[in-house]
């Protein structure tokens, strides 16, 4: 076989192998897309469980207005626990604000922290969310056993905990509302019950 012939034969082998690789990768993308599921907020096994009553507290926000937690209300309450020293909390604040605006008819957002009021005021101003109410209460965090930040707890209209979890992304924050809609404690529990459809 001439050098040219050998080269052409080798190139055909390369083309076929690359074609097989392309097909395998494309199929794998299809499999991954089929398996992609809503990312759920990580719920940690501590504190009051979903379905239990939230602690009944009445707390003043930074402007002095009183907020009742755990009492029957017209809307659900999303408690977002944050701290000025937590970078993920800072980056999530605009997301919390946009969620508050988008879901205003069903959820009232209440930020919760523990520490120096001035530090929180500066944080909210810097992130452009000074309109959101913030309560400072060491007791609230302790009674709900907030393990890590940023943590979110959804309290329903009847004062029960509807969903909760450690949230690092918008998807995880929204998953709390989704979990409530699906009547499941966490999105993880829902996914564990219904495995994603097998891909082609």
């Amino acid at each position, binding site marked *: 076989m001439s050098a040219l012939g050998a080269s*052409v034969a080798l190139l*055909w082998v390369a*083309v*076929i192998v690359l*074609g*097989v690789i*392309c*097909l395998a990768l*494309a*199929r794998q*993308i*299809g499999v991954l*897309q*089929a398996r*992609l599921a809503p990312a759920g907020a990580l719920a940690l096994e501590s504190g009051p469980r979903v379905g239990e009553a939230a602690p009944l507290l009445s707390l003043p926000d930074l402007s002095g207005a009183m907020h009742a937690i755990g009492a029957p209300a017209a809307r659900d309450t999303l408690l977002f626990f944050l701290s000025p020293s937590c970078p993920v909390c800072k980056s999530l604040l605009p997301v919390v604000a946009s969620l508050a605006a988008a879901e205003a008819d069903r959820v009232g957002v209440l930020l919760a922290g523990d520490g120096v009021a001035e530090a929180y005021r500066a944080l909210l101003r810097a992130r452009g969310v000074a309109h959101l109410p913030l309560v400072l209460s060491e007791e609230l965090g302790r009674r709900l056993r907030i393990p890590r930040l940023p943590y979110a707890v959804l309290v329903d209209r009847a004062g029960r905990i509807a969903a909760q979890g450690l949230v690092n992304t918008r998807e995880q924050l929204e998953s709390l509302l989704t979990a409530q809609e699906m009547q499941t404690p966490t999105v993880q529990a829902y996914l564990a019950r219904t495995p994603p459809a097998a891909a*082609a």
Partner: protein
Amino acid sequence: MLLTLRLFLAGIFALAAWGKWRERYALPGVIAGYGMLPAALVPAAAAALPVAEALSALLLPWPATSGAGAALGAGLMAAFALGIGINLARGRRGISCGCGGPEMPISPALLARAVGLGGLLAALAVADAALPSGAALAMAVPQAGALLLLYAVSEQLLANAAGRVAA
């Protein structure tokens, strides 16, 4: 060159027939979904379709039967294009293609594919079917194989894109 195309199209029909045979229990439902045939004819069509595709795949490579295989294939593609086109015009984009490859709904891209392949088959039905000699004969097989691989990749990517929009 013509042999490469004939082998390529034979491969497409072989894959499609195999895919439909694997999904044979779902095929009547898919055909009924197109809403083109009276219900009494659907089981017969579902039984005949993979056989017709396999027959076309078997006839296409050989000089003596290539014209008949291409004509049969062109007829099938015309029927597919008609079914997809009419249902797209009806606005029923959710129905399953049932094309034999990865699962996907009908789309303008699939209509264009059926029209394109049908045109190619119609041209081959009247083209010279003599076998080439020497190197051209030997190279036709890997050439057709490479084309078939690219076809399978494009089909998978189409299915992926459809899945992404639906999600």
